[in-house]
């Protein structure tokens, strides 16, 4: 399966109720160690109730600038949440079903250590 197959899919809860569209996939470089890095692993999906449009990365941190882009993006993706990959029950073509009791998490990333 490639990422493009997932993006834009409808996300439904265990009862079949539509929660939104899958707009992004959260990855972590934390799998099996390799020579320089490690395997990349899918850890979650980003669900946006109102739009399939790309978030342009505005959900990752609390960025509000430039306002002319950030404000429409926040409005477009209001109510967006992250779902842990372990809470995903079934992945179908165009449709992702969550487990019963799947948690809606905050999509922001934790502060990364600063290098400068």
């Amino acid at each position, binding site marked *: 399966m490639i990422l493009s197959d997932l993006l834009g899919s409808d996300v439904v809860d265990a009862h079949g109720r539509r929660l939104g569209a899958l707009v992004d996939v959260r990855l972590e470089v934390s799998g099996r160690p390799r020579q320089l890095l490690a395997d990349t692993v899918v850890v979650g999906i980003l669900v946006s109730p109102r739009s399939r449009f*790309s*978030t*342009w*990365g505005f959900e990752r*941190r609390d960025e509000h600038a*430039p306002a*002319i*882009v950030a404000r429409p993006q926040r409005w477009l993706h209001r109510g967006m949440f992250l779902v842990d990959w372990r809470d995903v029950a079934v992945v179908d073509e165009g449709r992702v079903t969550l487990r019963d009791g799947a948690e809606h998490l905050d999509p922001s990333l934790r502060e990364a250590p600063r290098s400068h």
Partner: protein
Amino acid sequence: MKRLFSVALGILTAIGGFVDIGDLVTNAVVGSRFGLGLAWVVLVGVVGICVFAQMSGRVAAVSGRATFEIIRERLGPRAGLANLGASFLINLLTLTAEIGGVALALQLATSVDPLLWMPVAAFGVWIAVWRARFRLLENVTGLLGLTLIVFAVALFMLAPDWNALAGQALQRGTPQDEPVATYWFFAVALFGAAMTPYEVFFFSSGAIEERWTEKDLATSRLNVLVGFPLGGLLSIAIAGCAAVVLLPASIDVTSLSQVVLPVADAGGKVALAFAIVGILAATFGAALETTLSSGYTLAQYFGWSWGKFRRPAKAARFHLSMIICLFVAVAILATGVDPIVVTEFSVVFSAVALPLTYLPILIIANDREYMGDRVNGRGMNAIGTVYLVIILIAAIAAIPLLIITGGGA
């Protein structure tokens, strides 16, 4: 003293490097049809390019990474691909126009048919990109391009009616004999010529090539803030010469030979020689920059190793892609299409692609993840936002105006 010299060199290079075939042709066309009536567009464009060149240079110096790598990472692969696609195609079109410009300039000097010069020009560009050091390329073409100052000198020597010129520049509305749509079409074209997208990729990738740190930012700011406006004044001088000599004679500029006639009129063979050398240097320099930009855009998006600071064997795909771009440019020109027409299309489509190339930079310049504390301040964001709106309007209006005016005919 050495520092002063290097600052001066930077500024002079920026002046000479600002003008390319798009500026030369578009300003001359506009001058011959509207006088200085569109000079305000050059001013708007110069401020815009200063703002965005500065932003992209800062992003590269502070983050240590080049534009397209960050764009793909921050905005996602689809937005990154849209940005890449638009930037790359416009770059290719601009490269074609510049190679055509080099060939036309060589024709002015030798009367040999431009079609014969085009492969030579492309070969020259390739050799320079392959062998010459980055700094050397910039400095030589930038300094030689300074000879274009002859256009400003010529304007003074023509002893024009300054009041009349000022009147043209400040008049509201369009001249009697040109329709409103044509006026705005050329405004968009002139804007696209001033805010050439490749300048931004080149600036930011150049920052990595030269291993800029934050300390270098101050120098680059000076280069940009002094050099580009002076380059803009040079563009206006080109329009002014056309306005003084060609407009009264009802000569509409359609070829490069018409662009230099006013200079010959003003200063004879010496001035003409300077003009031809300047045009050659400016177009060749721009051809180098657009070729490198094509390589940068592809390599940075696809994650190939890139850069002139690497030996060619270590950046094989980077160099190969540039060779292919040069081939495509020559192939397009070999169809016999008029390089001036290619130039006019390249500036208009530059205007269309501007939002796709500048919006990502504005977003990334605000991202603390890459910029730390060096994100845009309020003022910079305010100007950046105003320009984003201007750019969007120009981009949306460009193609309808192109169709309505039939290419400004």
